[in-house]
């Protein structure tokens, strides 16, 4: 027997029953006898949803059954099995509606049977908002009543709506477990056909909340698949009818998880022998994420504690990366390697550490997700500082392997232990990065040898790899750039185009940051910009970049170049770290950083330059940029690159010296280029500057005239 045979046979059996029941009813009441479910405007909701036809009498029901028959094709193809599944479900609906004939009340407490439209509207809102993260349909009897109730309880604790069909209802009653719509555990009925009442909920949700037109079967199935996070837990033993119903569920996008050894269909029909793992398997199969609203730690967690300083005398213990091996790390892994919310401590806990001592710590947050990328690791990691500081009585400084953490005596007395660091990191990473993180576990090492191993063998190589990636990340090496319009609140027409070699001019948004921001908040300030249609390679102008800039500036900007300061330069918002502007006498540019208060050889101070350059207006000859951009190979590439830099404040020069020297060496073969650049101790006017540049033989003097 194949799975097809089982589905077809189950379908045939139910069809036979239905046909018999309708014929009997017609024989008894006549074809004109009215039939209806109570409290719904959607007739027989499933049949109406799929076909667009309302059924009001027994005669019409018989015709409807004829329509159902046409779905029951018998080729051994997937679609036939699905359609037979749907046909089985529709038959179940017909059988159920017959129970309601003449205003009968076929279900009695605790069973609900058919659910009215008002209930759908009530449940629909939290379903749409995700406050009900999923709908579990539990069918049959668990191996033991306790296992059944435990499963129900586990879903209930996660806010998942639970519907019960068959033996599980008795099992709940047996153990006195409370059910009812108010606690979101709804026993439907004991016959397998009563499962249709939850399908009916899904179908009406699609009609009411999804604006699906009755009869648009494809739209209906797409909606249930994408928007109704339901799944089925069917306990062994399964019979043909249940399998046929299961095929219907799968057609609607609801995976079936069972503990019976049966056929397996990847992602749809899943065998999980261990009932205690039904919950995890189901959530993973249906891609349901549970919102974390509570962090389980014995002290408070709030931004009000972010600035708390813990002095030596107040501290219980200190982890100090400057003395012993410490590190913090985010590591993307495969989903199968991670058990969600597992917090593991490897080494002694705080109890075993002498008061006031310096200890090692290394914590590795391992995450997995379909949309997770290794590029996001440092983005999460940078947030750890803020997360840990928000804990009352914990102070965190530094990053990577140069961290220091202090736990206060008060926090320790309140019960704060090493694992709570893991709880906080888990909760924050899961909730703030829910868009990309499906599963997360935390390993906390306090064993000194393990810390040394993690730091040197795991973390350092990863940090090196990341740095290398950053170094080798070039504009040419990526397919897309990102826009950033975070500053539009005060600089309405400004758009930053963030590329790997040109970070946002505020200095705070790198290409990787922008990419992560986009993934985490797809409608947010960072949008993808393609760069397929080159207009001018030299100045870095692209048709698609121009289109994007025009769109994001609401038409205020027509075109920008990425690499020129003279031709269509990028605009500046006002938050730039630095401004560079042309100094005509020396045929180069001067750069002033925000912290520099003095005069520049251009004849303007930083605030004066800022007032000319800011506000999202193109100002040829001037542009704002981040400090990091100064050593970029793309810095003013169109005008000859960094060799044009003739002046910078001394402080800034020192900050960028190493990287700038390296770039100059690579581009022009010049050693110690920074020494040729003037600063305020050398000149604040163009004439003195020029004399200095001549003396040094600065390359800008012999370059093409800028204007």
């Amino acid at each position, binding site marked *: 027997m194949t799975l097809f045979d089982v589905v077809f046979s189950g379908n045939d059996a139910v069809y036979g029953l239905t046909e018999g029941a309708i014929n009997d009813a017609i024989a008894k009441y006549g074809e004109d006898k009215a039939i209806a479910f109570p409290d719904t405007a959607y007739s027989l909701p499933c049949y109406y949803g799929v076909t667009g036809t309302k059924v009001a009498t027994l005669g019409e029901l018989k015709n409807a059954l004829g329509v159902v028959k046409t779905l029951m094709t018998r080729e051994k193809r997937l679609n036939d099995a699905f359609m037979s599944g749907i046909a089985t479900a529709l038959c179940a609906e017909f059988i159920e509606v017959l129970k309601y004939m003449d205003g009968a009340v076929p279900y009695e407490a605790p069973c609900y049977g058919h659910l009215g439209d008002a209930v759908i*509207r009530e449940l*629909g*809102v*939290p379903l*749409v*908002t*995700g*406050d009900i993260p999923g709908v579990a349909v539990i069918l049959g009897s668990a191996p033991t009543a306790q296992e059944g109730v435990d499963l129900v309880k586990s879903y209930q604790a996660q806010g998942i709506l639970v519907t019960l069909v068959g033996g599980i209802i008795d099992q709940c009653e047996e153990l006195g477990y409370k059910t009812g719509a108010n606690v979101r555990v709804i026993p439907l009925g004991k016959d397998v056909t009563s499962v249709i009442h939850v399908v009916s909920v899904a179908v009406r949700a699609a009609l*009411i*909340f*999804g*604006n699906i037109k009755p009869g648009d079967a494809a739209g209906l199935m797409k909606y249930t698949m994408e928007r109704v996070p339901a799944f089925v837990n069917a306990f062994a033993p399964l019979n043909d009818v249940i399998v046929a119903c299961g095929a219907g569920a799968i057609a609607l996008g609801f995976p079936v998880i069972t503990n019976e050894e049966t056929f397996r269909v990847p992602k749809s029909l899943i065998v999980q022998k261990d009932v205690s793992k039904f919950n995890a398997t189901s959530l993973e199969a249906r891609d349901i994420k549970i919102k974390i609203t509570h962090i389980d730690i014995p002290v408070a967690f709030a931004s009000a504690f972010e600035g708390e300083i813990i002095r030596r005398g107040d501290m219980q213990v200190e982890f100090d990366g400057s003395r012993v091996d410490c590190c913090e790390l985010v590591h993307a892994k495969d989903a199968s390697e991670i058990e969600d919310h597992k917090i593991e401590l490897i080494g002694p806990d705080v109890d075993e550490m002498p008061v006031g001592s310096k200890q090692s710590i290394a914590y590795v947050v391992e995450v997995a997700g379909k949309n997770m990328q290794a590029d996001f690791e440092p983005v999460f990691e940078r947030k750890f500082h803020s997360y840990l500081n928000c804990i009352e009585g914990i102070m965190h400084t530094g990053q990577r392997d140069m961290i220091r953490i202090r736990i206060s005596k008060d926090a320790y007395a309140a019960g704060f232990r090493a694992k709570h660091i893991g709880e906080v990191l888990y909760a924050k990473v899961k909730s703030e990065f829910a868009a990309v993180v499906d599963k997360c576990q935390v390993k906390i090492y306090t064993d000194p040898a393990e810390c040394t191993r993690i730091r040197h063998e795991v973390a350092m190589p990863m940090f090196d790899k990341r740095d290398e990636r950053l170094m080798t990340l070039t504009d040419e090496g990526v397919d897309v750039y990102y826009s950033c*319009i975070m500053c*539009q*609140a005060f600089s*309405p027409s400004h758009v930053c185009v963030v590329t790997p070699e040109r970070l946002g001019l505020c200095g705070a948004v790198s290409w990787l940051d922008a990419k992560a921001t986009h993934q985490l908040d797809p*409608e*947010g*300030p960072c949008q993808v910009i393609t760069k397929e249609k080159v207009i001018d390679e030299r100045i870095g102008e692209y048709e698609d970049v121009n289109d994007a800039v025009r*769109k994001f500036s*609401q*038409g205020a900007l027509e075109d920008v170049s990425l690499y020129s300061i003279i031709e269509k330069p990028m605009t500046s918002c006002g938050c730039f770290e630095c401004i560079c502007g042309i100094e005509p006498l020396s045929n180069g540019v001067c750069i002033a950083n925000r912290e520099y208060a003095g005069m520049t050889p251009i004849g303007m101070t930083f605030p004066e330059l800022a007032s000319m350059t800011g506000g999202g207006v193109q100002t040829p000859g001037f542009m704002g940029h981040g400090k990091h951009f100064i050593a970029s190979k793309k810095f003013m590439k169109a005008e000859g690159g960094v060799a044009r830099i003739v002046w910078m404040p001394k402080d800034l020069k020192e900050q960028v010296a190493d990287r700038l020297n390296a770039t100059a060496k690579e581009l022009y073969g010049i050693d110690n280029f920074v020494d040729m650049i003037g600063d305020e101790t050398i000149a604040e006017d163009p004439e003195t500057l020029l004399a200095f540049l001549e003396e040094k033989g600065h390359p800008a003097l012999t370059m093409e005239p800028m204007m």
Partner: protein
Amino acid sequence: MPFTAKSGKFNASINTVEIGTGDKAIKIGGENVLPLYSFDAPIENAPKVGIEITDFGMENEPDCIKKYYEGCDTLADIAKKAASFEGVDFLCFRMEGGDPNGANKTVEELIGALKEIAAVVDLPLAVAGCKNAEKDAQLLSKAAEALDGKNAMFLSAKEENYKTVGAAAGLAYKQIVGAESSVDINLAKQLNVLMTQLGVNPKSVVMNVGTATAGYGFEYVVSTMDRIKAAALSQNDTNLQMPIVTPVASETWSVKESVSSEADVPEWGCQETRGIDMEVETAIADIASGSNAVILKHPTSIATISNLMKELV
């Protein structure tokens, strides 16, 4: 040489949104020109004026408002009276008492009050929350149910609760949903996109893009609205073509210029006159920036703005 004006008519237009049902239903939006520029092309729907009452009735109102409601004992009386003033196009019920940091009235109590009002008023209805996002989610979704079939306007869904308010008001009961953001064109747009993705029909969405009293950071309101209308009309940005509804009274009647008594600041003169002028001047500035409807409180303010709209459009 005579003057020749270039037409400022756009190919795109603001969505038309109907609020209420039957004869008294109103339409806002629909224009394809900048606010009030009826010389560029006819503006079909003049900006509308709503009157605001709250669940506190006259309890917290200044005397200069109370005197207009003399003899009104119940919320229903107050609502009937409010609806009867000259120039009132719609009635807005603000469930101010729901605020958990304030009176913290229950959802049942407030919905009960809403039903009382809905039973006696045939003008289009707007329902405003208590500014607490979590409570508003409950209040507005219950209100959407209570006003089923009235095509009422719900003010407002914010980023924190748009799913609940949008799903209840926009999807479950097919009412008009207000999307509220805080004086930033990109936030306004983002919320509209999210609302659309939720499945709410964009033609059933209105925006509250932020509001302020004249003199209190009003430049942000102006620039946000200016930019939204420019993007909607000249860039045909469909995510910003929703009409704008701006609550004014709840802002202007809390600043010191409106609430200080004449005894406290004698040189400022009559409090009522100050309150009206603050409301009127703020409201017209909102309309000139792009509000398609404003919500006011003082009967004289309402008559003044309403008449001015008839003259201008």
